[in-house]
C-alpha cells in the first residue's frame, strides 16, 4: 500500500518508526508486552486510516498520536489512572551545579509510572524524540504554556525522585494552571 502522491509505504513506516514507537509505548505503559501490543495496534490503525495521512512529513507525529490514543483507550478501559490523590509540585528549585548521577532506566520508569499521564506523555516526548513544545502541544492538545508548565513540574518531580530519597521527594504533580 503506497500513499497517493508519496513514495512511502506502510512497510516503510514500520521500518522507520517501529523501534521508537515501541520505546515510547514502553515508557508510557511501563510494560514490555503492552508496549509491543500498542506498537502493533498503532500500525494496524495507521493501515486502516492510511488515507488520513495528508502529509508524509507528519507521519511520525501522526503515528505517535495514534499510539497515545490507543494507550489512553486501554488506560480508560482499565481505569488505572488517578489511583493516588494528586498534589501540587512547586516549580523546580534552583539546584546550582549539582551532579546528577547516572540515571537508572528502571528507576526512571518507576518514577514515570507515578506521574499522571498528562505529565508523563509530555516529558517522554520532550526527552525521547526531541519533539518541540509546539509538537508536544499538538500531540496532547493543550496550549504550549500548559505543556511548559507540565514539563517543569514533571522535571521537578523526576529530579527529586532520581536524586533524592523518596522519603523527601516532592509529591506527584497534578494540579496546574493552564
Amino acid at each position, binding site marked *: 500500500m503506497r500513499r497517493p502522491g508519496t513514495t512511502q509505504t506502510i512497510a516503510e513506516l*514500520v521500518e522507520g518508526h517501529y523501534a521508537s514507537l515501541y*520505546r515510547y509505548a514502553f515508557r508510557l505503559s511501563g510494560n514490555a508486552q503492552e508496549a*509491543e501490543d500498542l506498537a*502493533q495496534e498503532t500500525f*494496524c490503525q495507521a493501515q486502516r486510516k492510511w488515507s488520513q495521512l495528508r502529509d508524509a512529513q507528519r507521519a511520525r507525529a501522526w503515528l505517535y498520536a495514534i499510539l497515545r490514543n490507543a494507550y489512553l483507550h486501554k488506560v480508560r478501559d482499565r481505569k488505572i489512572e488517578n489511583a493516588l490523590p494528586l498534589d501540587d509540585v512547586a516549580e523546580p528549585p534552583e539546584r546550582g551545579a*549539582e551532579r546528577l548521577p547516572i540515571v537508572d532506566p528502571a528507576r526512571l520508569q518507576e518514577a514515570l509510572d507515578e506521574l499522571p499521564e498528562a505529565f508523563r506523555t509530555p516529558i517522554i516526548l520532550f*526527552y525521547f524524540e526531541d519533539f*518541540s513544545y*509546539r509538537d508536544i502541544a499538538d500531540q496532547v492538545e493543550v496550549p504550549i504554556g500548559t505543556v511548559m508548565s507540565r514539563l517543569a513540574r514533571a*522535571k521537578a518531580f523526576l529530579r527529586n525522585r532520581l536524586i533524592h530519597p523518596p522519603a523527601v521527594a516532592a509529591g506527584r504533580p497534578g494540579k496546574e494552571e493552564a
Partner: protein
Amino acid sequence: MDCTSARLLLKFARTGEIDPSERGILDSHVAGCPDCAAHARSEERFDDALALAMTRVAVPAGMKGRILERLARTRRPRPWPWVAAAAVLVAAGGAFALWKATRPADLDFEPVQVKSDVKQTPEAVEAYFSKEFGITMAAPRDFNFNLLDNIDLVQIQGRSVPKLTFLNRSHAGLAHVYVMSTSDFNWPGEISIPSATHDIQIRRSANVPDFFYMVIYTGGSLEQQFMLQGI
C-alpha cells in the same frame, strides 16, 4: 536581558524553538551571568542524563516481523487497480444515467414544429425519416398533406414509430397518425373506436401492405377533415 527571560529562553533553546537573534542575546547573557551559566549547565546535565535513560529501552527481537505479519493478516484484499477503476467508471456512469433520467429534460422545440425544410408531401416525409432516423416508412397517401403540421418519432411499446400530425384549422380538427410497421406490430384489423373526446381508427392504405395506421383524431369525420377523398 534579565535572568528570568534568560531562563525561559534556555527552555526554548533546547528544543530549537528560538531564532538566531534571540540565541545571540541569550548566549551573551549567559556568558556574563554566573548564576544563569550554572543553571544552564545544571539543566543541560539533567536533560542529557534523562534523555539517555529515557531512550535506553531494548526493542524485542523479531518485533518488526511480527508487526508486518499482523499487518498482512489484517489487510483486506484489494481488487486489482484496473478492476477498481472499471468499477468506479461503471458506478459513475450509472449514477450519471440515473441523474440524467430523473432530472427534468430541457425543452426541445424542434420536434413540435414542422421541419421547415420538409416539404408537405408523402415522399418528402418518407425521405426525411429515412435520412434522419434510417427508418423506412410509408406515409398515408390518402391524407391531405397540406394539413401536415408536425412530424416526429415516438416510442410505442419499445418500438420507434413515425408520428404525423395533421391540423385542420378551419374545423379545429387535429389528427395524430402513427405509422405502424407490420414488422413491429401485428395487424389487428380495421378498428374504429369513437369516444366523447376523440376517435381512434386503425386503418390501412391501399397498396401499402407493410404498414398500417393508428389515427387518433378530433373534430368530426376523419375523411371530411383530413383526407383527400373519402375512402
